[in-house]
C-alpha cells in the first residue's frame, strides 16, 4: 500500500543511498579538492534528509556549517599545504 507517507519516506531512503555513493567517492578520491567537494554534496543530501525528518532548526544550523564553512576551511588548509594524496 503506497500512500503519501510511504512516498515521503521513500524519497528520504533514496537520498540516503546517494549520500552513501558520495561518501564512498569522498573517501577514495586522491585529489583532495575533489574530496572536499564530494563532501559538500554529501552535506547537501544530509540537509535534505534532516528536512524530511522534520528538523528545520537543525537545517538552519547545519547548512552554513557543513556546506559553507567546512569547504572554506579545508580549502585554506589545502592551499597552504599540499593538494595530492600520495599512494
Amino acid at each position, binding site marked *: 500500500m503506497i500512500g503519501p507517507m510511504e512516498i515521503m519516506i521513500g524519497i528520504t531512503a533514496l537520498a540516503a543511498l*546517494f549520500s552513501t*555513493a*558520495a561518501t564512498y567517492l569522498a573517501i577514495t578520491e586522491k585529489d583532495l579538492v575533489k574530496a572536499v567537494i*564530494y563532501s559538500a554534496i554529501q552535506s*547537501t543530501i544530509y540537509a*535534505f534528509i534532516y528536512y524530511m525528518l522534520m528538523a528545520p532548526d537543525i*537545517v538552519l544550523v547545519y547548512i552554513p556549517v557543513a556546506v559553507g564553512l567546512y569547504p572554506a576551511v579545508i580549502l585554506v588548509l589545502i592551499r597552504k599545504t599540499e593538494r595530492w594524496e600520495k599512494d
Partner: protein
Amino acid sequence: MIGLGEVQLFILYILPVFITAFILYTIRALRGPSISDIVLAVDSMSYDLAAFLVILAIFFREPILIGTAIVLALWAYSLDIYVSKYLEKKEMGE
C-alpha cells in the same frame, strides 16, 4: 473553490519529475570529469532543491519550513565563490 486536497494531489503528481531531475543532477555531480563540472552541478542542484523545499513546505502545510530554502541558496553561492577563488590561485582573503 480549490481546496488543499487538490493542491496536495497536484504536488504528488508533479513529484516524480522533480525526483528524476535530482537523480540526473546527482549522477552528473558524482561523475563529473573536472572540478568545475562538479561545482556547477551541485550549485544548480542546490537552487532547484530550494524550490523543491518550498513546494514540500506547501505540501506539509508548515510555515516554519520555509526559512531553510533561503539559507540553502545563499550558502551554495558562497561555495561557488570559494572554489572560484581557489581555482584562480589567490589567497582566501584577497
